[in-house]
């Protein structure tokens, strides 16, 4: 432990020093001062058009041009370069809600499902991933996903490294009315929760250093390219916004990027990692379904930021996403409980919680594209298919996906992506008319299938390579003694619960 631990600590120090040096070098001011101009200023009609564009979440420049008046008015209008307060408010709340899903939502949901001796390790992983991914996102991640200067369908650009030039002014490529720094923080929360979801497969048997190494490589090798392909303005499979996309797929809030990517990666990781010591022989029942339920409730609440926030505006599409999210989650929770009742005679708390999460996963890619009736079907299927996987197929195949990340997120995400292609309608989301009008309601599901193949390929191959690389270098697993003792003590030197008799 001592020599490799020391080298690991040195590496962390060097990385920190590198980051701070880079930040210090970043001397450029955030926003260039607007030059005083003698050109004619915006007319009242132009200014009114800009305000209307704010309320309707449309492009203010285009609206002002349509309103006539001097072209110089477009750039010098009082609202030019400013964010819209309502949209910005909602997006800051949404970003906080999505972070709340990880801290403490997922930490409690996962923490309750492991044994007492490993509860803190799960929480430490969530905290460590949050810190690590935030720095990676600031330095590289945001730019690799949402930059454009690589002119690539696979990866973004370098213009926003260290969040250079990412200010409170909106970036019209992604939102006309939301500050780009708010947008970057909102997207950061997705980059945090995705690896945090993955590690649910590896609980109780992966060492902390390996979790952090995995997160770093996975974020850069799998997440950033995939997120750019799906959501980047020049993305390979961004069917909604990129007319030049090779695959005309749609994903409202992260069916590919978060759910499928985490689920399929988790399957690969748990296979490379191997089973927990005593798997199938020692009882490994959840130590606190109370914590688990509290966490599941927080995930559900946070998911409103995740799904409705993915409209990147406080608009009608967000309102639709809010509604469909509620319906699918409630239906799926009930259906899972009902299936348990029919199968075993008892509906369980873990069943309701798992069903709610599965429904939320499945509606994620669809929420801003489908009507309420479709949301009900998505809720039903989003519970049934993952239920069969978690309770039947997994036992038959025998892999140790400890917290069913594949069964819930991988399977649910894939089902959701497919159903999105079937149920999406332009009446809910007019943005679908821009480049996809001939596909919606017809062969859009085929594009979704192509996207599924690409996502599974990237997640599975990328994760396998990363996991094997870590296994061959610093190693993935703790010693047998450490695993038996529990990761709380062996990795963190703490215990989750200390009971002492009262004096």
């Amino acid at each position, binding site marked *: 432990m001592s020599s490799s631990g020391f080298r690991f600590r040195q590496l962390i120090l060097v990385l920190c020093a590198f980051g701070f040096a880079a930040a210090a070098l970043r001397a450029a001011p955030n926003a260039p001062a607007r030059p005083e101009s003698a050109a004619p200023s915006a007319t009242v009609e132009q200014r009114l058009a800009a305000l209307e564009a704010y309320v309707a979440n449309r492009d203010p420049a285009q609206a002002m041009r349509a309103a006539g008046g001097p072209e110089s008015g477009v750039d010098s209008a009082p609202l030019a370069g400013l964010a819209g307060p309502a949209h910005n408010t909602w997006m800051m709340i949404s970003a906080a809600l999505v972070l709340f899903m990880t801290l403490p939502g997922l930490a409690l949901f996962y923490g309750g499902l492991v044994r007492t001796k490993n509860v803190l390790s799960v929480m430490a992983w969530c905290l460590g991933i949050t810190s690590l991914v935030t720095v990676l996102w600031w330095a590289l991640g945001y730019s690799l996903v949402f930059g454009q200067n690589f002119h690539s369908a696979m990866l973004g650009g370098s213009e926003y490294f260290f969040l250079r030039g990412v200010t409170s002014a909106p970036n019209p490529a992604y939102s006309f009315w939301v500050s780009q720094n708010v947008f970057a923080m909102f997207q950061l929360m997705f980059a945090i929760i995705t690896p945090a979801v993955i590690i649910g497969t590896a609980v109780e048997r992966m060492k902390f250093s390996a979790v952090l190494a995995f997160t770093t490589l996975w974020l850069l090798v799998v997440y950033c390219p995939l997120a750019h392909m799906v959501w980047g303005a020049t993305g390979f499979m961004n069917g909604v916004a990129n007319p030049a996309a090779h695959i005309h797929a749609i994903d409202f809030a992260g069916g590919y990027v978060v759910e499928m990517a985490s689920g399929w990666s988790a399957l690969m990781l748990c296979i490379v990692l191997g089973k927990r010591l005593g798997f199938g022989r020692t*009882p490994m029942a959840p130590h606190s379904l109370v914590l688990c339920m509290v966490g599941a409730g927080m995930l559900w609440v946070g998911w409103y930021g995740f799904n409705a926030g993915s409209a990147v505006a406080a608009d009608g599409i967000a309102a639709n996403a809010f509604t469909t999210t509620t319906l699918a989650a409630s239906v799926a929770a009930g259906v899972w409980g009902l299936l348990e009742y029919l199968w*075993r005679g008892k509906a369980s708390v873990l*069943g309701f919680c798992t069903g709610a999460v599965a429904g939320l996963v499945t509606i994620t890619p669809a929420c801003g594209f489908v009507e309420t009736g479709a949301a009900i079907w998505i809720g039903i299927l989003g519970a049934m298919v993952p239920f069969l996987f978690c309770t039947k197929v997994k036992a038959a195949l025998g892999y140790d996906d400890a917290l069913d990340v594949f069964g819930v997120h991988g399977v649910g995400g894939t089902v959701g992506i497919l159903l999105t292609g079937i149920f999406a309608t332009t009446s809910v989301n007019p943005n679908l008319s821009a480049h996809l009008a001939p596909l919606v309601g017809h062969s859009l599901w085929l594009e979704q299938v192509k996207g599924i193949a690409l996502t599974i390929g990237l997640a599975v191959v990328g994760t396998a390579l990363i996991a094997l690389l870590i296994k061959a270098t610093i190693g993935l697993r703790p010693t047998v003694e450490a695993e038996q003792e529990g990761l709380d003590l062996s990795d963190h030197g703490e215990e989750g619960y200390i009971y002492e008799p009262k004096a």
Partner: protein
Amino acid sequence: MKLIIAIIKPFKLEEVKDALTAVGVEGMTVSEAKGFGRQKGHTEIYRGNEYTVDFLPKVRLEIAVADDVAASAVEAIKKAGKTGKIGDGKIFVMGMDEAIRIRTDERGESAV
């Protein structure tokens, strides 16, 4: 003097305690215990993973009583602790050589 050890269902503890107090028992020691008899354990299922729980939670009472109280104490436990379903527990009665109250050094029946 007799020492009575009773293993009962945890939710019956209050009723048993009240019944014992009513027949003149002035003290008892209670501990949480686990075990199985004819009831055996039960099965728990978490997302399809089945775990057999062999040892069920019980409460273990230890009561030291004078000889003339023993029979009514046993009767009280039996009556208050009974649900009629499997798993109600057991009562063991044994002879006791000596009892000492630490504070006063009293011995014998005045110490129990």
